[in-house]
Every structure is written in C-alpha cells, then in structure tokens.
C-alpha cells in the first residue's frame, strides 16, 4: 500500500436521460493495491467502469492514468496503455478456450512489450490459462469456450485481461454467479495477481469474499460516493447501512 497514485478519477458525471447514473464520482488508486467498489443495485458501479475504460463517454470529469489524461480515448487505446477490464457477463469467442487469448495477444501492447515476437502464441495462451486456474493437462483449455461452466468463463475473462500484461485490471463482479467452492479457488488467483504487482479494482456484491481481499472500499449509491475507507469502518457507517438495508422505521 501507499504506492504511487496510478489512477485518478475526478468528479465524473454521466446521465442517461434524466437518470444521473454517476454523479461527481472521484477516486484514487495506488499502485499495487486492491480497491473494492461496492453499492446496491443500480448505484452506478458498472457505469463507472465503462466511463473509466472508455466504453461510455462522460458528460464531465476527468480520468488520469499514470498522470496521463485518458478521458475520451477509445477503449482499445486505454487497454493498450495497460488499463483493462473484465465483463460482468462473459461472452467468450466461439473458439477453443486458449484461442480466446490469441485476441489480446495480438494487441499492439503485447507486441510492443514482447518486441514483436512472442514465440508460439498457443503455448503462451495455455500458460496464461494455467495461471488463472485451468488444469493444464485436462481437456478444458481445448474445449469451445462457450461450453465452459461459469467458473471457467470468469477465469477466462481474467486470463483475457492478464494476456495484455496490464497494470490495472478492473473486475466487474467476478464472483457473481459462482458457487462458494468456485469463489474459494478464485480468491487465491486474485491474491497471486496482486503479488505479481497488478493493481486491481473489484466491483462486487459478494461483500464477505471481497473483504478478505481488499483493504479499502468505496461505496456508491445513486451514482454518488457515500463512503470510503477500511471495510469495517465503512460498514459501520450509518449512510452505508441505510443504502444497503433501507431506513429504519420506528414503529409506534
């Protein structure tokens, strides 16, 4: 913790018609940390990711990545800078699982890092899949990706990001739809990523599992940041409790 500031989000605003999806959101991400972003349904978490990664253009506000302004850049340019994301609902390409990773491996970023030569891309792809918990000797990496169970699909999403050799990965509800057993195997994968120096933002509904991983969370509600800090402090916050559980009604 306490590394250099890698990503700064300043006062982002986005409205869809009359709905303020994200309203004045600001956050800062230091190098090497895992930041949790939580909030009830419809609080603007996914929109915030879309704004940071360039999939949606903000109405106002700025995003800085490594002191460079990236607001308004196209998603593929942002990804090539080393800031990438997973999708909440994985829709893999209809190819063998390991072939799915050929797509990010063909990106300019990877080519630049590898000096234009990666060797056998298929072998690199299989190594990456092993890193996120695919069994190397099993048939799974060769199966058509769309036939994989949800747990593997989420890992494939993570591997797709990892293939880009990113500095920041933003995970959009990577635990959703997974069984307890699948989450239990996913947590160490993410811890390993952090040890390797990847900075991670996790947008999550599964708070118990999230709090095992993160030291700092940001809480959104109706597009606004309502709290920030250590998980325990944040959950003790009255406003956060109200957002999650509703207002206490005093019965007569």
């Amino acid at each position: 913790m306490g590394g250099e500031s890698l990503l700064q989000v300043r006062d982002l605003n986005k409205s869809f018609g009359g709905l303020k999806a994200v309203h004045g959101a600001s956050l800062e991400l230091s190098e090497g940390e895992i930041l949790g972003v939580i909030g009830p349904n419809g609080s603007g978490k996914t929109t915030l990711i879309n704004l940071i990664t360039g999939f949606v253009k903000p109405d106002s506000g700025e995003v800085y990545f490594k002191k460079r302004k990236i607001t308004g850049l196209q998603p593929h340019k942002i990804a090539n800078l080393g800031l990438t994301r997973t999708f909440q609902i994985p829709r893999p390409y209809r190819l063998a699982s390991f072939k799915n990773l050929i797509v990010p491996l063909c990106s300019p970023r990877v080519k630049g890092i590898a000096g234009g030569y990666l060797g056998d891309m298929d072998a690199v792809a299989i190594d990456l899949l092993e890193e996120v918990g695919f069994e190397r000797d099993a048939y799974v990496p060769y199966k058509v990706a769309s036939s994989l169970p949800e747990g593997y699909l989420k890992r494939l999403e993570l591997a797709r990001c990892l293939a880009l050799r990113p500095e920041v990965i933003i995970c959009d509800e990577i635990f959703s739809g997974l069984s307890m057993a699948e989450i239990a195997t996913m947590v160490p994968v993410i811890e390993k990523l952090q040890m390797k120096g990847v900075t991670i933002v996790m947008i999550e509904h599964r708070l118990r599992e999230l709090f095992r991983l993160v030291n700092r969370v940001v809480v959104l509600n109706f597009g606004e940041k309502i709290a920030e800090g250590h998980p325990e402090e944040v959950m003790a916050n009255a406003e956060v409790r109200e957002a999650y559980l509703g207002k206490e009604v005093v019965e007569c």
Partner: protein
Amino acid sequence: MRGERRKERLDRSIKVRTGGLYAISSWREISYLLGPRLLLILGFLILPLIMPNLYWQRVLCSMGVFALLALVFDFLGSYVGLVSLGGAFYTGMGGYISGALNSSFGLPPILTIPIATLGGGFLCTLLFLPTLPLRGIYFAIITIIYPIAAHKVITALNIFGGTEGIHALSTFPNIWLETYLILGAVLIVLFSLRRLVNENYGIVLRGIKDNDQSARASGINITLYKAQALFIASAIGCFAGSYLSTLYGWAGLSLFALDFSILPIAAATLGGVGTLVGPMLGACILTPLSEILRAIGTWRIILYCLLLLAFIVFKPEGLMEYLQRKYHQFEHWREV
C-alpha cells in the same frame, strides 16, 4: 419403435488419426486428407476442357465470378460479422475502373485488372468506412444501397458513358486464359481465405465478430481490423468485376446489377454458411442450373425458388456440412 432409437454419429477412426499431422503413416491416410482438395482442384482444371461450346465456357466464367463473390460474402458474414450485400458494388467498381483505364489511357488488361483490384478495393473500403460501426442487418441494408446509388449516379451524371457504358475494351486473347484465370483465382482465394481465418489474424477477426466489446477491451482496434477485412473482400470482388468487363469488352450498368449481391446469399444458403468451400460449391451448382433451366422460361424462377426453399427447410446446415459429416463420420441406429 422409432421413438426408442436414436441416431448415433461417431468420428471415423481415420479422421481421428489424421486429425494431427504426426499420426499420418500411410498413403490411405494421406489421400483421406488430401483427396477432397485434389478432387476439387482437378475438377476445376478439367471443367474448361469438357465444355461443349463457347456458350458453356462463358457460363463457366460467370460461375467463377459468382463463386468469388460467394466466398467474399461468406468470409465477411461468417468470420468478420459484416453481412455484406455490397457484392454488386465491388463488381461495378472493379469493372468501371478497369474499363475507364483501358479506354482513356489504353492500358492493357494485364495492368488494368491488378490496378482495378487494388485501387477498387481501396476505394470500396474508403466508401464503406462510415458504415463499419453498424452490425448485422443494419450493415446489410446500408451495403445494398451502395450499388443502387452508384447506378443512379452514373445515369444521372451521364459519366462513364452513362446508360450506354464504356465500349470496345480490350479483351482476353483466348478462351483458355478466360476460363483458367477465373477458376485459378477461385481456388487461390478459397485456399488463402481458409488459411487466413485459422491464422492468428483470422482468430482476431472471429473474436471481433463474436464479441466486439471484449475485443476492444483486449486492446484491439476493431475498426482497423474490419477495414482490413473489408479491403481483402472488396479487392476480390473488384477483381471479379474487372475480369467481367475485360471478358465482355464492355463496362456497363449491369455490373451494378443486384444479382451480384443476391446470388451469393443463395449460394451460401445452399452450400452452408461458414464453411467457405460450401458457398463456392453453391455458386458452382446454381449458376449452371439457372442456365439449364433457361429452356423452360419463367418456370425456372419458380423451380429455383423451390430448390432454395427446400434447402432452407430440410437442410438448413447446407450441402457442405452434410457432405463433411458423411465423410468424417459414420452413423447407425442404436437402441436406447
């Protein structure tokens, strides 16, 4: 009882053995792999020799043109996700470019065809660039407007000979060059495209087709890739067009005829979408068939439609998938 049985399909053991190159150990296995390819190549080489007269040799030429367009349609539709009805636009552009170069500057076909192929491909890509963010049916609708608009522009402005077209162009020196040039091009394009879609570059294209958002998050400039694929496709289409105008010594508005956009779809339906070789074979069946049926007049359209309908209803997978299954697998009824 039929209800208690089900059809079981199993890969032939020879298919499994030849699946990886390392396992090939006999001539039988090598011929199992290469046989269908050689059969196709040999068939294409022999076809011009057995055509009875000039008329049928010309049918062969237009068959080749439609086969190229069907390949292009399948490549764009099944591997890049751009269902393009712009076939007629490519042929028109290619035909008019080579025609104009030949009549204005007197360039011989050996120069006009390559220039029309590359230049036409470039020009088509440039003109289609604004439509690339569109997907599916929206892209299809826009692309069919292009040949119609080009037709109207030429008529309205009375350029390139207006409705008359550009006449008296240089033609091919002999019939053998005419037939073998187009059939050779079909084979080269078929095998190159099949190779391309399985290379890493093709994998990226297929990724963009299946999920463009995820490809963008993977650092892929999808507009650039789509434009490159469109260039490959339209260059092939422009080659077909410039070939046609050189074949007939005339570049006219019929090069923008919607047949060039529609027939490839019919061919792809018949042959099997997504197999590349299927749509090509579909064109090789439909073009001569339509000539044979010419004798029965208007009935030919009805028969033609019935055939297509029968394929869509009874064999929606197409001819090629069916043949491949029969070749690679055996099936038998099994009690359940």
